[in-house]
């Protein structure tokens, strides 16, 4: 599914540059649920952004679902993002003047689907996250957990091969966090490949594999026994 080798990334800071990723090698197979951990500044978000094609790597290889990702222009990147990837953000990033249904339907709009088809698919995914009754509510009428569920529905709507979550529970309380994680685990059970960036140990242990980063290199990469979020709730 995902193959990264010798990935380097540095950011220019004034005259010098900050070497953030110093040769990352990572392979993620279909159906995996991987937590990427590390303290702030370890490069975990940068890695996720490169995987998400929101940022470009300087050196190394990146292959996603058999497609070599290199020298992307913005248009190509947009098409790949739309086709391969679903994003879940810490701050939800819902569009605040669009209701839940419209938010979920947005990636489908950029896929060029017909209105009716979009509505049906969006409804299907909203129902999946249990928020069909809230379809016509605006984001500010929803709780944090509900917002994240709408965001998950939106990420799923385009039927991506890989789901990228950047601190998906960072803005939520523990109970809600576990609810969200339980849902994400369900998605993984159904076969979705999921990458989660987090710095919370308990969240990381709800994944099947933990990759620890420190100062731009992978320190540890281990398979863990998954803790089911449902047990905590």
């Amino acid at each position, binding site marked *: 599914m995902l193959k990264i080798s010798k990935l380097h990334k540095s950011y220019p800071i004034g005259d010098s540059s900050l070497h953030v990723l110093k040769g990352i090698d990572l392979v993620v197979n279909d159906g995996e649920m991987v937590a990427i951990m590390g303290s702030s500044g370890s490069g975990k978000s940068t890695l996720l*952004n490169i995987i998400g094609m*929101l940022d470009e790597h300087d050196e190394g290889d990146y292959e996603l679902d058999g497609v070599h990702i290199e020298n992307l222009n913005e*248009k190509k990147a947009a*098409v790949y*993002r739309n086709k391969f990837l679903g994003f879940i953000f810490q701050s939800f990033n819902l569009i605040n003047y669009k209701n839940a249904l419209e938010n979920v339907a*947005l990636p489908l709009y*950029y896929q060029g689907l017909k*209105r009716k088809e979009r509505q049906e698919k969006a409804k299907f995914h909203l129902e999946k996250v249990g928020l069909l009754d809230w379809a016509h509510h605006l984001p500010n009428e929803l709780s944090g957990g509900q917002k994240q569920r709408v965001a998950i529905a939106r990420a799923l709507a385009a039927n991506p091969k890989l789901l990228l979550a950047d601190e998906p529970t960072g803005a939520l309380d523990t109970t809600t966090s576990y609810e969200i994680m339980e849902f994400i685990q369900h998605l993984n059970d159904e076969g979705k490949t999921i990458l989660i960036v987090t710095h919370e140990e308990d969240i990381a242990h709800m994944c099947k594999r933990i990759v620890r980063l420190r100062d731009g290199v992978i320190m540890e990469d281990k398979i863990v026994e998954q803790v089911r979020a449902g047990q905590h709730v």
Partner: protein
Amino acid sequence: MKFLFDRDTWQEVFDSMGKNKLRTFITMIGVWWGILLLIGLLGAARGMENSFNRLFGDFATNSVFIWGQSTSKPFKGFQEGKRVTLKLSDAQKIQDNVEGIEFVVPRNQSQGFVVRKMLSGTYNIAGDYPLLDIVQKKKLIKGRFINQSDMDNKRKVAVISEDIYKQLFEKDVEPIGELIRINNMNFAVIGVFELDNFGGPSSDIHIPFETFQQVYNQGNQIGWMMITGKGEYDIKQIEDDSKLILKNLNKIHPEDKRAFGSFNLGEQFAKLTGFLTGMQFLTWFVGIATLIAGVFAIGSILLITVKERTKEIGVRRALGATPFEIKRQIVVEAVFLTLIAGLMGIISGGWILIWLDSAFGQGEDATLVNSSVSIAIVFVALLILIILGTLIGLIPAFKATSIKPIDALREE
């Protein structure tokens, strides 16, 4: 072009505009005001032009009046101060010799005491050719103007003004065929005319020229003449040529400036139309300048909007929006805003014109006649709006996609 007819495109436009209604509204004010000014001012200028045209409409504007005064220079044995009197033959000479002449209309005028039954008054009596009706169209309410047959037979007939009719006749009396006494001679009324707003010395009663000659014992003397030039000829030149011929005929020093008085209507009229043209130019200038200012306001507000929406744009791009789709959306918004504001400006400009028409455009001596703007101008204005809207929309559009999506998403 297909996306223009796509419901979703417009859904997006309305969503993002409806997000902040006040801002959308304020954004549009500039363009609305520009178009309103353009339409209102152009309409008013047109109304003024129409009003002038109506005022002068039946009047040969390319004309000059010339009358005799007294000389200021001695010449060929004549002392200065010689009284100059124009003669019929002078008029004929001018007609024959000056280039570009259309008509030469000799006229005579005198005071007369007019009586009808118990009513009387002193009025200006003018002796006129039927030609006068062509160069200085009389608005006849009743009857007709003097004709050639009146002239040939030296008939004692009179065409009187509406005012005199009201003063000398009781209400509802049919004046045509009635007799009035002018200096103790009976004249039959053949027509009643409405006084025009303009036309040189006012005349109350017109009688045939030859009748006037006989009654006032004028011989071939004429009071003044009205010379009209053909449209393409310069009336100032005609005036100078005519005066030179007159000086020659009347043995007056060629440099004598006082011998003949004149009033050059053509020149005055040219000044007026020049003023109107200037005003129209000013109108266009002010209107277009305001419009451009308005469009720039839209551009700058969209720029702020784009800045505010940086994160949203980042999200959209993360969800798979291509930079082109983002740009297109913003340009469509810009054009749509300008166009709607422009249309509203045109509509309210129309209301202004309707109001102008009802306030200043009614009645005979309206200051603004038929204030209006041609459809062509409206379309030109709309076209300008679309072009300006597109151009100005490109600035925020490029601004929006110049930020990398990752930076856009980080924006708080």
